[in-house]
């Protein structure tokens, strides 16, 4: 009889020494210990390691000296952040993008899925869902490249139209006032189909008896949509809203790094792109410690946001994230 079953029948726990218990565990489960090795090393080196390296925010880190050899400077880097005049622009840009996401982008998949739910022809429903989901899987580099192609002042379709109506070509990607609209439109294009899947799944969970009862009472389709479907997915809506408020400081960094150039920094530069530039595009010596400190402040604020918004939401809805 294998050892594993024997142990389940009788296990005189606590009678054996620690050493004996470890030995027994190892002899019985040594294959599990071998199998966990690659996963554990990945966790240790590539996931926990970087968290540990965050201590450089409290150092004057120099690559030549390493983490162990660099000087400790306490909270100097954090103090510097509050004296950095450029921070205001960065925070402003980040928050404006987030507010635009919540006010403009957030309701669109809800409306989309409400109307998609009213479609009875299966092929229309299938086509709309498949085609709207496709952009979600396309890379930021392709999406931004397409934006450049369509908006190109040298013969892109948008400028062709403007020219046909007698206007002057606009170099959209070099104009600070166009950065936010383009960012938002790309976001809607990329994510509407994805978010709609979540709402449609929630709609599918609504009890059909509610609709039947409403039909008996003579409810119209519009009435059913507003009084049954919409309240039926309110929990999902609140949860998704919490996620997006919590993600206020999480921008699509790939998209911004691909879209922006020095001429649109005034509206396009956000905290993460600034950190990226400090570390990987600086002309002189990269200031790793300062960049890390900026990122820590951002992460801490984001974390507080998620937790407090979640508390707020649980007051109003029966939905909790954690």
């Amino acid at each position: 009889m294998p050892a594993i079953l024997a142990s389940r029948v009788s296990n005189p726990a606590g009678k054996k020494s620690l050493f004996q218990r470890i030995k027994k565990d190892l002899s019985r489960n040594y294959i599990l210990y071998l199998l966990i090795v690659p996963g554990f090393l990945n966790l240790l080196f590539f996931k926990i390691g970087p968290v540990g390296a965050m201590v450089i925010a409290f150092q004057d880190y120099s690559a030549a000296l390493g983490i162990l050899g660099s000087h400790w400077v306490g909270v100097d880097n954090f103090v510097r952040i509050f004296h950095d005049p450029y921070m205001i622009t960065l925070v402003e840009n980040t928050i404006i993008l987030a507010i635009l996401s919540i006010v403009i982008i957030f309701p669109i998949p809800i409306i989309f899925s409400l109307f998609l739910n009213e479609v009875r022809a299966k092929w229309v429903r299938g086509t709309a869902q498949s085609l709207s989901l496709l952009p979600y899987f396309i890379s930021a580099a392709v999406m931004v490249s397409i934006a450049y192609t369509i908006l190109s002042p040298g013969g892109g379709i948008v400028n062709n139209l403007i020219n046909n109506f007698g206007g002057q070509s606009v170099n959209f990607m070099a104009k600070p006032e166009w950065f936010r609209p383009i960012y938002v439109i790309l976001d809607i294009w990329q994510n509407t189909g994805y978010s709609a899947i979540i709402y449609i799944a929630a709609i599918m969970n609504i009890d059909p008896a509610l609709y039947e009862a409403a039909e008996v009472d003579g409810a119209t389709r519009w009435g059913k949509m507003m009084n049954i479907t919409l309240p039926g997915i309110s929990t999902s809506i609140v949860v998704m809203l919490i996620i997006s408020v919590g993600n206020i400081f999480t921008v699509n960094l790939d998209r911004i790094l691909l879209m922006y150039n020095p001429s649109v920094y005034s509206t396009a530069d956000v905290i993460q792109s600034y950190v990226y530039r400090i570390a990987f595009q600086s002309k002189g010596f990269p200031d790793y410690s300062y960049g890390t400190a900026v990122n820590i402040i951002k992460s801490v604020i984001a974390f507080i946001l998620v937790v407090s918004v979640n508390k707020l939401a649980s007051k109003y809805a029966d939905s909790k994230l954690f």
Partner: protein
Amino acid sequence: MNHKKISVFDIVNNTVLLIISLFCVYPFLYVLFLALSDGTYLAKGEVTFLPKGLNLEAFRYIITNPRLNVFTGLSNSFIYTFLGTAAAVITTYITAYVLSRSRFKHRFWIMSLFVITWVFEAGIIPQYIVYNAFGMVDNPAVMIIPGAISSQFLIITKTFLDGIPKELEEAAFVDGANDWVIMTRVYMPLCTTLFATIGAFYAISIWNQYLLPQIYLKNEQLQTIQQVLKSVVITDSTSGTTFQNVIQNGITLNQQNLKSAAVFTAMLPLVCLYPFVQKYFKKGILLGSVKG
């Protein structure tokens, strides 16, 4: 749903939704039309809804011209995606198998660490310092090894394995099987759909990676197609130096032809794959959204 007659609302609603769907894919078609058209028509702004002067010269030019690196980028991306997906599915499955065994005493704290490091990301600079210490700079392994376990897919896989009845494992033990046999022979056949789902997601995320290779793979011979796209299409749009008009086999190719061909080439593998793996995507999105 008793009355099946088609109302005005149905017609309007269906039409609007189909138009919206068309808007979602039109930009992709537009770059395809540009790539397939003759440059002389492009210059006159005559290409909008169909290609004009149909030809494949733009694709031939960008793939065969070594200076543009498109071919190198494509083959690199294919290799990274293939190896990375294989490594990720195998590692994620093995790790999830161990972490879903109740006999394995350390499963709780290890799982917690996976979740904590997922929620609390260190940021790109500390990551760079550590990865650099492991020799990941200008090393293709950076596309394969660090991402071999995504905490999100680990949770999904573990939840799935937790749902397999314990009796199966116990019966196999009675028959003398060990963990390796159970993992590879008993559980694996039950996981084919799961593998397809997480495999599709891993593959797409590796193919689409931009920031990671941009930070670590500076050597042009190692770059991915996404990086090539950045330098060929985007950087060029702001500086405008790479392309002059080319006349190849009697067809004029201007920079719009060539850039569009590069963009479409970079998304083609995904578009080809999409119809087949779409159902797994939907499954994966819903599985992922359960955990937030």
